[in-house]
């Protein structure tokens, strides 16, 4: 699969590669970096905003955004943890993102949990406290209302987002291969 996929060159001056193979754009806005955990081999593209500063009110260290391996955050996508009133006080909750997650460009993600192998399309809006289970597709432009639960192997589309389809049984292999291939092809231009 992906025999004809062309390499995706990037400007070497723009991206920083970490020890674990994460490729993070210098032009991405990362706030509260100490509260963000990247699993490795993930790509944060130019213009992406990660709000690690929106942390829980309790004292001590709390990871705000946790991301697994082979994830991609597209250009100008926004990741911010969900927050709500709890016992008379406003507090943020951590955002957990598993492996092989692709977040399209211009997407706004305030989900509480995103399972592995989830593909969020371009310009999608994921409301607060949304739970996306493993292996799901959110088509481009979908708006998921707050606290929606997206079950495994489902495809969601529309505003408000509705379940429109299910995924074939081979989807896990397909998505893992495509995420790996994307990372391999994302190389600095010579």
């Amino acid at each position, binding site marked *: 699969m992906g*025999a004809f996929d062309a390499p995706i060159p990037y400007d070497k001056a723009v991206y920083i590669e970490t020890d674990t193979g994460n490729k993070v754009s210098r032009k991405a806005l990362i706030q509260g970096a100490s509260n963000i955990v990247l699993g490795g081999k993930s790509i944060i593209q130019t213009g992406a905003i990660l709000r690690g500063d929106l942390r829980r009110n309790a004292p001590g260290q709390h990871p705000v955004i946790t991301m697994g391996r082979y994830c991609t955050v597209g250009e100008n996508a926004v990741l911010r943890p969900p927050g709500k009133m709890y*016992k008379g006080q406003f507090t943020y909750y951590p955002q957990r993102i598993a492996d092989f997650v692709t977040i399209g460009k211009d997407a706004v993600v305030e989900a509480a949990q995103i399972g592995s192998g989830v593909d969020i399309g371009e310009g999608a809006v994921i*409301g607060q406290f949304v739970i996306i289970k493993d292996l799901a597709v959110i088509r481009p432009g979908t708006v998921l*209302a707050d*606290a*929606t639960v997206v*079950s495994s192997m*489902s495809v969601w589309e529309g505003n408000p987002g509705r379940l429109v389809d299910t995924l074939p*049984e*081979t989807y896990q292999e397909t998505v893992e291969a495509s995420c790996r291939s994307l990372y391999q092809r994302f190389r600095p231009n010579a």
Partner: protein
Amino acid sequence: MSVRYHCSHLADPAPPLPPSYASSSSSFNPLGELYFCEECDAVRCDLCCVSEIASYFCPNCTFDVPSANVRGDKNRCARSCFSCPDCTTPLQVQATGTTEDAGPSAPSGPPFILICPCCRWSSREVALEFEKSAGLALQLQKLLSAKDPAQPEFDALKDHLDTYITSPAPAPTPARSASKHPTRHISHLTQMAAKALHRDVPGMAAAGAVAKSGLRREMKGGGERYGWDELGEYGTKESWRARGLERGDEDVEAMRRLGGIRMGVEPEGSSWYNDGKRRLTNRYPERIPLQTKLTKRCPHPACRHLLIQPDTKSTRFKIKMVAANYLPVVEIGRRRRRIDGGGHGLMSTGSMEEAEVRRKERRRLRGRGEEVDEDMGAPIRPGEVYTFQIAFTNPLYDPIQVRLTQPTAPLPALLPANHLIHIPTRDFIVNPLKDAWSYDDEEEYADMEGTEMGTSEDGSSVLPSSRGTLGPAAGKRSRLSVLATSSGGTLRDKERRKRESEVDKKGNCTKVGVEVEILPGATGEVVFDLEVRFTYRVDDTDGSKPKGAEKETQKGKEEYKHFTFWARVDLGCISP
């Protein structure tokens, strides 16, 4: 731009109908959606698979509903999952009252309401409030059953008939076999036959009426009711007459006036089901329908093997027999357009002889003719010659020998062809799937290619003299040369062919060229079928073979099997 694979739907594998037959499209699916039955050695698709429900779950609370409860719950979640009547978004429970322990700023106590996080619809709009936040379905059911007359009516009728079905049959009346009217004591088959005989024939309404009236008269006259089941009279709970819905002539008049209404297509975005206005008076939240996990079986009556068995607890599958693990992945890409002066004058008809002449001309000009890379999305122009690459990726742990041809369709095409296909390399090898780090020894495979080229006509392999036959690679070589036997030809011939067709090997992927000549003045879509026949090695069942004897027995023990499948390649529309 797509490649889809053919499923013969239980029939014997045979070339599919040409692409011009619309009916053939249902037999083609992307590779990812196909299954493979090892027992039948055949591709199966979603249309022909036998699906059984493995488990039910609510997509909102992801609770696995036991299948015994599903029917009683009417296939909907019986917990606290509701969808908004306006926008079908799952509703949230919100507390509206205040409790004493929490401050007045945060409502946390009863009454609870359902609120839509998307359109802000609230259950207060239909005066629904709940005492407790748990088990809302039960609370709502009580509230709704009081308002909806249809459900209790149906339940009452069902109960009434249930007594008839479950009660023991009355003792058969003696010696009244002449009774015309069927009872439960007569077999169901006889009853069905009797019903079929009495059924009204369309257009014979008058006759039927006469017969029925005759029957009724006979019944009144005779008054014999032996063998009848005693079924009590059913009294309705409510009647439309009692509700004052009977207006007589007024209704008739109203219906006459309806003639003036234009019946047309509804405005966009308002299907009858989702149209909020229609349901203004009946906007109660609905319980969320359950989803299922399916088990899929081979449809062959003699096989019935499981192809898909999901794990109810996770997203994994206990059994997953998918075609992607058995058939090579076919992809098409790298489009190039030929720029050469010659050949265009000849392009007047699509006859095979002329195409062959042009092809030879192109082959002669190959050194001089130029090819430009084009974007795959660029429009295809009539009268041009394009070269594409077709990539075959091998999912097996053994090399495969592929033969690529154009199938002979069982029926002539409906439309004259708008393009001609030429496949320069029909036979080639696709290397086995290995772990990513094993591909470093690519050289070995480059050598094997040499072996492939060095196969002489009689099948005995001419090994390149530069490399000796050392170590385990020798075994692999001889095996591959067996696979390569069919390709034939002298070394020089092979080299020329390789250069011409540009066989491109990398890892477990082999790319070969295909020429597509779009005829002048052609329109429509460029769709063609490919027949892919591949040969693969079958592991012998006798696994405990002595190591020393391996070399001698290799040829005898190793078995090769063939598998043929058909793929439909869609290159897109020709733009004039």
